[in-house]
């Protein structure tokens, strides 16, 4: 029995699986749709080739190419991975900005075609359409590269590297950093508003995926000893995407399965169709492409999650334990006190009711509690808008608004439809740029600061429309907004679970307490997208609270919520305000304003009409008219 074919399949499977893992990491986990993916594999292949080949003049002179450094194994493979990662950097201009996903995808597709065109036509680069051949194989001088022993060894190395890549992407994905990636995938604007630096995340994924693809290209080139533009057209990218979609985007085992089924299985199976039939020779390959197209569309319709869908990450709720010793000086078990927060009030010993104590310590304590003589009007201004204007093509949605919000207040923002409330809120949060004017937060001018930076300073917003991370569980939703988790960086993720376990457990404890406080602990491990409208609202608010905000910007938080629940949420907010949290809340329910908000700002037609308590506003004729008319 001829084992060369099995070896061939094995190496191709390893290379394709590696490429699919890289693509799945970009597309399935981080939501970066990289239609130019094949360029990175091609770059890796070419790099490995020109590093391994001798100088072109010494190689018979009939190929012309750059490089030709004749470097020994494993340098060509290392170079392939490095170059694959480095050339990802220019692509960030397409995916980093706020460009529609489909536009960015088109740009990447076009870039792949462009690169292929350049490589084909510019001969001095990589020998044009003929490509590079007679590429030396690893350790070719020492071993007979055509013997079965050598080839099995090469296959084993390829499979081993594929396993390494698998562990690498798994480690990234199963970490707080991976959770942030998935949050970005599910709703990037919301992730941005919770402090995630989208550009940095996407760049990291492009580079990581590019390096993986580059390595796969290097291995492939070492096996087949040639590389030409015909081997990496945009069709190859489509095949890889089909593999990831069918196998299961976002599931790493799914990526491997997809690689085995599509580029290897499907393409190889067609070789077995006997060729003596009277069919025209072009028919089978054409039908093969039709089949791949059909598979893509059919899978996206019937089973978009793929054969192996993304697993649900079930997180055990951290049990609450009372402090081992009452009293301020006593050591407190780690999981009932969140890391870095102020310890429970000094005072007489005596166990406070467990849930209350833990819950109280779970909630954010950004500033010292106010003293008794505190008067709202005397407190410092946390957020200030100075003459803020927003224009949309000639229409002034916000026409010169100036307002101040003081610490510890629950300020309401009301107004009829079209008054500009949500627009103003968006500008305050940074998710929308101002046309003119200034915004000051904690004394600093933050007008030019992007949303995620403001979030890291403690300015957190919620959204009017449903904005939970649908494919994350409720618990995961809450955990994403935790700032300062050591595992929420690439380096932290790669260092491993032992490094960030502490921070993670502390966050889980806080989240558990919050869930119990809001009564949703039973749903902790349900997908947020499966909850009812009111429950999703609460998840959003809890998520905002988990971010340790100093100031909350809430956009209609009670919309669609049962009045009892609304009252409960309002009560929670009041408690938090008493502890120093500042809230600015847009609401339509005037009863809520009555009960909870002081002061209240009334807007109409893009400008502030008046400010005061609800009862004061009700007495003003201009406010009443704006509501009747507007």
């Amino acid at each position, binding site marked *: 029995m001829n084992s060369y*074919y*099995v070896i*061939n399949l094995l190496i191709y499977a390893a290379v394709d699986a590696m490429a699919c893992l890289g693509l799945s990491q970009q597309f399935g986990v981080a939501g970066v749709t990289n239609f130019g993916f094949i360029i990175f594999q091609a770059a890796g292949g070419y790099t490995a080739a020109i590093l391994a080949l001798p100088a072109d003049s010494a190689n018979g002179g009939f190929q012309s190419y750059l490089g030709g450094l004749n470097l020994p194994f494993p340098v060509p493979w290392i170079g392939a991975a490095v170059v694959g990662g480095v050339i990802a950097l220019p692509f960030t201009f397409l995916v980093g900005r706020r460009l529609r996903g489909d536009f960015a995808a088109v740009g990447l597709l076009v870039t792949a075609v462009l690169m292929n065109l350049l490589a084909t036509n510019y001969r001095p680069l990589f020998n044009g*359409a003929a490509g590079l051949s007679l590429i030396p194989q690893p350790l070719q001088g020492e071993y007979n590269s*055509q013997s079965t022993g050598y080839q099995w060894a090469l296959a084993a190395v390829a499979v081993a590297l594929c396993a390494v890549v698998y562990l690498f992407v798994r480690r990234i994905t199963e970490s707080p950093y991976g959770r942030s990636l998935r949050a970005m995938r599910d709703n990037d604007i919301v992730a941005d508003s919770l402090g995630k630096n989208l550009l940095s995340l996407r760049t990291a994924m492009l580079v990581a995926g590019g390096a993986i693809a580059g390595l796969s290209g290097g291995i492939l080139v070492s096996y087949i000893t040639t590389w030409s533009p015909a*081997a990496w057209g945009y069709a190859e990218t489509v095949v890889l995407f089909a593999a990831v979609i069918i196998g299961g985007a976002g599931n790493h085992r799914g990526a491997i399965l997809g690689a085995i089924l599509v580029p290897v299985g499907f393409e190889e*199976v067609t070789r077995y169709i006997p060729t003596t039939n009277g069919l025209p020779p*072009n028919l089978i390959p054409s039908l093969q492409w039709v089949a791949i197209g059909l598979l893509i569309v059919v899978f996206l319709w019937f089973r978009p999650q793929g054969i192996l869908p993304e697993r649900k990450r079930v997180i055990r709720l951290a049990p609450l334990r009372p402090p081992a010793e009452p009293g301020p000086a006593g050591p407190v078990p780690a999981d009932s006190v969140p890391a870095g927060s102020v310890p429970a009030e000094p005072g007489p010993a005596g166990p406070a009711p467990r849930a209350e104590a833990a819950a109280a310590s779970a909630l954010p304590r950004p500033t010292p509690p106010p003293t008794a003589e505190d008067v709202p009007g005397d407190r410092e201004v946390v957020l200030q808008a100075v003459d803020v204007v927003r224009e949309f093509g000639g229409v002034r949605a916000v026409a010169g608004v100036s307002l101040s919000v003081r610490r510890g207040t629950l300020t309401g923002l009301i107004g009829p439809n079209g008054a500009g409330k949500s627009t103003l809120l968006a500008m305050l949060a940074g998710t929308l740029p101002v046309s003119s004017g200034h915004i000051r937060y904690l004394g600093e001018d933050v007008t030019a600061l992007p949303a995620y930076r403001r979030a890291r300073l403690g300015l957190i917003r919620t959204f009017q429309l449903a904005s939970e991370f649908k494919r994350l569980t409720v618990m995961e939703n809450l955990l994403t907004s935790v700032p300062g988790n050591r595992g929420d960086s690439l380096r932290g993720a790669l260092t491993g679970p032992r490094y960030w376990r502490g921070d993670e457990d502390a966050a889980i404890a806080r989240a558990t307490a919050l869930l119990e406080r809001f009564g949703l602990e039973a749903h902790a491990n349900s997908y947020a997208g499966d909850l009812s409208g009111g429950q999703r609202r609460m998840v959003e608010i809890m998520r905002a609270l988990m971010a340790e905000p100093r100031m909350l910007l809430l956009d209609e938080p009670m919309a669609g919520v049962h009045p009892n629940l609304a009252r409960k949420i309002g009560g929670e907010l009041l408690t938090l305000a008493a502890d120093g949290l500042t809230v600015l809340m847009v609401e339509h329910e005037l009863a809520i304003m009555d009960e909870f908000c002081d002061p209240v700002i009334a807007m109409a037609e893009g400008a502030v009409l008046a400010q005061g308590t609800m009862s004061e506003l009700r007495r003003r004729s201009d406010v009443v008219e704006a509501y009747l008319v507007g």
Partner: protein
Amino acid sequence: MKFTSPATGRRRRALVLAAAISAAALAALTGCSAASSSGGTAAAGAPASGGAATGSALTVADVAPFSGPDASLGPTYLASCYGATAAINAAGGVLGHQLTCKSVDTRGDPADAVPAVNQMFASTSNLALVIGCTSDEAAAVVPIINARKMTMFCMTGQSEFDSVHFPYFYRLVPPDLEESYAMVAIAQQLHYQKIALAFGNDIGSQTFIQPAIAALKKAGITLTTDQTLDLTATTFRTEAEAIVQSHPDAIMTEALGSADPTLFSEIEQLNGGKMIPVIGTSAAISPAFFKSAASAVGASTFSSQFHADNLVTETSGPAYQAFSAALLGQQGKVPGATGDFTTYLSAPGGVHLYDGINLASLAMIMSKSTNPSVYGPDILTIGDGAAGATVCYSFASCKSLLAAGKAIRYEGPGGPTSFDSYHDSTGIFQIDTYSANGQVNVVGNLSAAQLRALSG
């Protein structure tokens, strides 16, 4: 989006995963058992190279593109395989075995060619010979086939194979280098003073340019412009305009697929309705090319303005008779061979691979073995001919001479062979044209001396 409950979902997924992996593994392993080769009874388990079991059929594999831009090449070679093996089988076969043909589609790119060839070795139990291997895939597959110690007769003109030693590699077609010289020699013979170049940007065509430029210089012919055609583009108006503006006497070109026909029609249009004479390469001698070119500018216009170089092939005599009878007998039986079948009588793949199959078969008989390591040297003996060898022109006649104990030299429709140390044999060139009905005519000859005068 609905998510199934974890337990049933997991079980189902595990089953699907297991099924998928077993299917893929099965597909791979079946490659090692009963062959899927066309026709014939194939014994399972016999090693690829080594003695074949008595009575079983020997396979000749056509490793070439059957799909993609060069899809016309595979069927051309298959036609000659069918012709040659039919004649061999009619004369009693080789050492008691009948011969059968198999096509192996490389899809025109190296990454696909490698698994195709590996699968061929895994699934073909009585492989005796490989033919084909064009420039699209040769660089990738020749080392593999050579390592498996299988004889191959290749069609690639790439310069790599002019001086790299692969013991199992044989080539009966000239390197592209020589074809460039032949084209320039044609230009000389037709007294053209100014030539424009228009070559495609693919592997096979790129290699003509530099030698052609050098040869034109040596011949004292002016190069008016050198245009490279992107084979994926659909119009070449700018290139055509540049060519027309440079006022050449003729154009030297090779740009396969739809590129050349498009170029011709645009040149004609921009040149006030008059087509400029064209000198093409041997790749233009194919029914598919004639069909496209004729529909682009009209059959009579095209045929009156077109010349191509081609390796000398006989058009009469005993070798040609045998060849023509064998090949034409396969008309209509070769899958994918469309167009005028008689063109295969002149197509390089048609003629020289027929010779290659005959040479290999006769070598097997002479060495009494189907093992390429054993019969290989006899190919050279029969091709070059030892001193005092009798010349024979067909498999049947050569076989009977061998049976009578005589030393032979095979001379087929491709003319006499003369292998150098790299197993390359190039013959002399002739000048071909088409008639308006697509028939190929030989209108002149080029001598080796003419070519040598142009080489650098």
